[in-house]
């Protein structure tokens, strides 16, 4: 009896979680400007309309630019932090790592407001894509550290020592042994931080200048009801892309675990 109750609970949970997302493609292909049942007919017209909105294209370009740079910066930072945390012993290592990881659990609105204060009031920066990149790097780095930490922990330290023992320098050892073995983790970190940055709204909303990111642009579109089906179409594309990226990221993470010949200690998926 107890098992059935849990099963029921899980079913309800999944329904609430995914029903809105399933509604996205349904209305994206519905031939009506009104988002309501019953459905009136099938069309791909909303997707075609997306191609004609120039402001949307600018927002997409801007978001991609921010997401790519965020992914690169936060993965590089994550790489350094994870490497240091797994290979070197230094004072207050535990405390320092906790500090670095806290943005993971801080409410984003707090992060956004405090960053706005710091950047505008204290540093007197002009809001632009770069301020968004800086903020996104801050929130993505903990994810990258978490992923790369597990990559480095799965990497037997004697592999690096063996390469040095066989005559390689520290740098060439990193290039020939460490990098190839943690590469799956690096790719996973790049993909995850790219996805987070692409989807992120609150911080981008606070910190963008004159050029909105895609989520900020979509939020602006909601004021125009006739645009709603096009937003649904855009949402469908984004959901599909996000799922694809997560699957690819997880694939690389698992391959990394298999390659290092270790037990899977669980990832994000």
């Amino acid at each position, binding site marked *: 009896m107890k098992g059935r109750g849990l099963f029921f609970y899980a079913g309800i949970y999944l329904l609430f979680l995914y029903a809105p997302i399933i509604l996205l493609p349904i209305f994206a292909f519905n031939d009506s400007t009104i988002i309501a049942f019953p459905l009136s007919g099938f069309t791909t017209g909303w997707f075609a309309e997306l191609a004609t909105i120039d402001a949307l294209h600018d927002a997409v370009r801007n978001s991609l630019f921010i997401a790519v740079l965020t992914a690169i910066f936060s993965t590089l930072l994550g790489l350094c932090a994870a490497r240091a945390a797994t290979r070197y012993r230094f004072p207050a290592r535990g405390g320092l790592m906790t500090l670095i990881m806290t943005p993971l659990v801080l409410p984003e609105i707090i992060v956004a407001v405090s960053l706005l204060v710091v950047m505008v009031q204290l540093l007197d920066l002009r809001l632009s894509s770069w301020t968004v990149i800086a903020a996104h790097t801050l929130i993505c780095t903990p994810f990258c550290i978490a992923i790369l930490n597990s990559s480095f922990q799965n990497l*037997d330290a*004697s*592999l690096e*020592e*063996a*390469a*040095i*023992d*066989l*005559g*390689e*320098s520290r740098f060439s050892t990193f290039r020939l*042994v460490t990098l*190839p*073995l943690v590469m799956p983790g690096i790719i996973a970190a790049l993909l995850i931080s790219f996805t987070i940055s692409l989807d992120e709204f609150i911080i981008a909303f606070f910190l963008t200048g004159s050029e909105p990111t895609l989520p900020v642009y979509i939020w602006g579109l909601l004021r125009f009801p006739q645009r709603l089906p096009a937003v649904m179409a855009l949402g469908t594309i984004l959901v599909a892309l996000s799922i694809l990226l997560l699957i690819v990221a997880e694939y690389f993470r698992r391959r990394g675990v298999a*390659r*290092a*010949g270790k037990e899977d200690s669980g990832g994000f998926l």
Partner: protein
Amino acid sequence: MTDGARHPIVSLRDVEKFYGSYHALRGISMDIGEGEFFSLLGPSGCGKTTLLRTIAGFEEVSSGHVLLDGQNMDGVAPNRRPTNMVFQSYAIFPHLSVAENVGFGLRRSGLAGDEKARAVDEALAMVGLAGYGARSAQALSGGQRQRVALARALILKPRVLLLDEPLSALDKKMREQMQSELRRLQRHVGITFILVTHDQEEALIMSDRIAVMFEGEIAQLATPQELYRRPVSREVADFIGVMNFLPAEIRMGSGTAVEADIAGLGPAAIDSAQCPGALRPGRAEVGLRPETMTILPEGAPGEGHVAQGVVAEQSYYGDMTYYVVRLDGVDQTVTLSMKNRIGRAVLEPGMPARVSWDPRALLVFSG
């Protein structure tokens, strides 16, 4: 086989190592000869790996010096030392093929591609893995990984090969096979091997000389025979093979004559050469190896030194039987081993046993 006869390739001079306040190596000084098969033997945590990594250059000495071929190695990085290491985990690069693993160290050799390939083939053939080059390193058994690690280290023709418990991950059969193979390989290439092991039998079988380590110190450095026959202390005697310890009373007679009165065995005349330390009258312990005692057959005449007892335990090993005999009159047992010959009955627990022993086999450890 002592180091005096050989040119020392590795010299340690008062090597000390601290991990924080933990004193891991305590004043280690020794010379290891060119072409020697040398073992570092000791219980877990005694500092064997630390000493090996100090020679390889992965650990810096806190004080003292490591000399390789007469050259002081202070501040010399592992990649600049004429040593190569076989790691306990083998450290086979999982993203490379067997041939790429074995040829890894040749990247900086300046050899042409076909010369490298030939060197790799030779190295693989040497460890009995000819034709395995194209395989993925992950598709190998434990024994094969071990061989790849050996080939990878030996291809660089190091002056010294360092092996950290290379056989401990293998099953018993495989381990015995690799022991003789390693020994044969070492004689073939003539390179100095320094083997870390906690298995005293393995050290005895394979080594020219053995350094026994306890708690960061060398307790004894000797050939296998010396180590087994003349351990310098009770601890070494206890660690190498099986040794029976019995309390005894030492009495000095006139001249050089010394007598030991051993609990359960009785009195015996001994020689001062049988005592590794200073021979003092009074309480002491004597050590006796199991194979130096025998159980006399029933009715056989008991000459020399015979003690009466009862079989307490018996373990049958096929070729040998080990007996634990409780000696009459004292709360004391001795372990002894007997070859299983045709016509010799295996005794069962509870049966009486007359134990014949030889005072010449006694070792005396004064307290």
